[in-house]
C-alpha cells in the first residue's frame, strides 16, 4: 500500500464518513480520523469530493480544531524507528500542540495506541507498542496534559495500516496514534 496524500475536501468527507460509521455496528477500523485507510477501495473519497471547508479561522484550543486539516491537531500519528521507543525530534511540534490542547481542555480524554511492525513475537510486540504509547504519554504530560486525561495502551502488531513485508511498510506500522474522547 502506498502513502496517499489526502486532499482537504477528501479529508473532511472521510471525517464525516467515519463519524457516521461511529453510530452503527459494525465498528469502523480504528484508524485515527482520516490519516490512512487500510482498504483503499472501500472509501472512495477522491472521486466525489464533498466540500466542507470552513472559510473562517479556527481556534486552536477548540474541539473543532481536532478535525480541521489546517490544525496540527488533525495529525495524530507519531512514527518510531525499529526496536525503538524514542520520540523523534520531528514530532515535538505535533506533541506540543496536543499537549497544549489537552491542557486547555481538561475534560477531554485521550487514548494513545502504540503499534509495532509484524516481525517477531506478538506479545513482545505488544510490549514494544506499549513502550511507544507510554513515550507519547510521558511527552504529553511534560507538555501540560494531566495523567488522568491519558491512557496508553498497545495494539502490538495486530492493527497494521500497511501489510506488505517491506521497510517502508513496517515504518508506517511502528506508530503511536492519539485518539480523543468520542473517537474510541
Amino acid at each position, binding site marked *: 500500500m502506498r502513502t496517499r496524500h489526502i486532499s482537504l475536501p477528501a479529508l473532511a468527507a472521510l471525517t464525516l464518513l467515519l463519524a457516521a460509521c461511529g453510530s452503527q455496528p459494525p465498528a469502523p477500523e480504528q484508524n485515527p480520523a482520516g490519516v490512512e485507510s487500510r482498504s483503499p477501495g472501500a472509501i472512495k473519497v477522491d472521486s466525489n469530493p464533498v466540500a466542507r471547508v470552513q472559510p473562517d479561522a479556527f481556534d486552536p484550543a477548540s474541539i473543532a480544531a481536532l478535525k480541521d486539516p489546517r490544525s496540527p491537531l488533525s495529525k495524530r500519528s507519531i512514527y518510531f524507528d525499529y526496536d525503538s521507543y524514542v520520540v523523534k525530534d520531528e514530532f515535538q511540534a505535533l506533541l506540543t500542540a496536543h499537549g497544549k490542547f489537552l491542557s486547555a481542555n481538561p475534560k477531554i480524554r485521550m487514548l494513545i495506541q502504540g503499534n509495532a511492525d509484524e516481525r517477531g513475537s*506478538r506479545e513482545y510486540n505488544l510490549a514494544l507498542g506499549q513502550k511507544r504509547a507510554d513515550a507519547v504519554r510521558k511527552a504529553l504530560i511534560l507538555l501540560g496534559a494531566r495523567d488522568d486525561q491519558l491512557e496508553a495502551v498497545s495494539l502490538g502488531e495486530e492493527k497494521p495500516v500497511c501489510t506488505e513485508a517491506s521497510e517502508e511498510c513496517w515504518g508506517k506500522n511502528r506508530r503511536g496514534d492519539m485518539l480523543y474522547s468520542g473517537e*474510541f
Partner: protein
Amino acid sequence: MRFHRLVLCCAACLALCSLAARAQLTVEITGAGANRLPVAIADFTGERIISQALTSVVRADLERSGLFRLVDAGAPLADSATPVFEDLRTRGADAVAGGSVAMFADGRYETRVRLSDVPKQAVLGNPAYLHTGAQLRATAHRIADFIYEKLTGEPGVFSTRIAYVVKSTGRYELKIADADGSNDQAALASREPIISPAWSPDGSKLAYVSFEAKKPVVYVHDLASGRRHVAANFKGSNSAPAWSPDGKQLAVVLTKDGSSQLYIVNADGSGVTRMATSSGIDTEPRWSPDRQFIYFTSDRGGSPQIYRIATGGGASGNTAERVTFEGSYNVTPRPSPDGKSLAFIARDGGRFQLALMDLATRQTQILTDSAKDESPSFAPNGRMILYATEINGRGVLAAVSSDGRVKQKLSVQAADVREPAWGPLVR
C-alpha cells in the same frame, strides 16, 4: 451499548459458522520419524459402516504421528480371534490390532479391540468402548491413544484438542478443534484481534487476550457454557495470560504501573500482585510444570532474552536468572511438560525459528527451516510442538517432533491461522 453491539455482532458471526464449517484445518504430513514401527490395523468385524469409520480414523491418527508405518493386515480380524501371526510376520508387522463392533438395542455400540505383539505372539491389551454413533471419532481417537501408549510407552494425544485463531477479512475467530483438525467450533468471533489463547490445566477454560474494547483485555472463557469473565482489565494493556499448574491463578502482563510487567491474579480476576520488577519489558510468562519457576521474556539486558524467576519466597526478593545467551532475540519461552526442555523462538539474521533447549546441558537445537515461526505449544506428552508460521505469505500452523524429524502442516483454505495452543490430556 458497546457490549450490545458486540453481542449482535457475535450472534451474526455464529450464524455464519454453520456455513464456514468446511473451513476446517487439514493436516499434511511433511516429514516422518526415521524408525517407524510397522503396525497392522485390521478391518474390524461386526457393524460394517461403524467399523470402517473407526479404523480409518485410527489409521490416520497413527500415521500422522510419524511414529508408525501402516502395514496391510489382509483379512478383517475380530477381537476374539487369534491373529495369523506367521502371515503378519511376513507382511512385516510388529503389532496388530483387530476389533468387533456390536450394536445394542438402545442404539449404542460396543467396540472391543485386541492389540497383539506379532513377534511375541502375545496380547498387549483388550479394551472395550461403549459409545454412540455421534462419538465415533472420539472413540477412534481413544483406540488410537490406547495403541500409541501400549507401543511407545507414552500417552497418546489423539483425544486432545487444540485452540487457534483464524483471521479472515475483518474477522477473527477463536477456534477449538480435535488434535487432527476435525470437529472445529468457534468459541468466540470478533471484528477485533484475539491473541494468546491458553488452556486451563483441566481443559475446561481458555484464557486469551481480546482487543474488542479497543485495548488488550484478558478474559477467561468457560468452554462448556460459553460464558466468560474479565480476568484483567486495568488501565493500560493487559496481556499474555498463563495458567498456574493448579489452575487457580494466572500470570499476566499489565502496564498499570508503567511498562509491561509480570503480575499474578486469581483466575476470577481478584487479588492482583506483582511478580517481578524491571525497568524494561517483561512479558510472555509461563510456569514450569513443577511450579518452581516462571519463565519469561525480558529486555532488561538490552535485547529480548529468556529469563526465569523462582516462584517461592517473597515477590520482591527473587532475582531473575538469564536462560538464553546466543543471539540478540530469544522470545516466547514454553517449558516442556516434563520440565526438561524449553521451546522458544530464536532470531538468526532475519529469520525467526523454533528452537529447543535442553535445560540440563543448555544446548539448543533449531527445529525448523522456516523464517516466521511464532507461538510454540507442546503436545501434552511432549512429543510434538505445534507452532504458527508463514507459507507463501499466509499464516499456517505446523507441528514438529521434539527430535525435529516428524513434521506436519495444518492449514485452512483462504484464511490465516495463528496463535495455536495445544490442550491438556483429559482423562
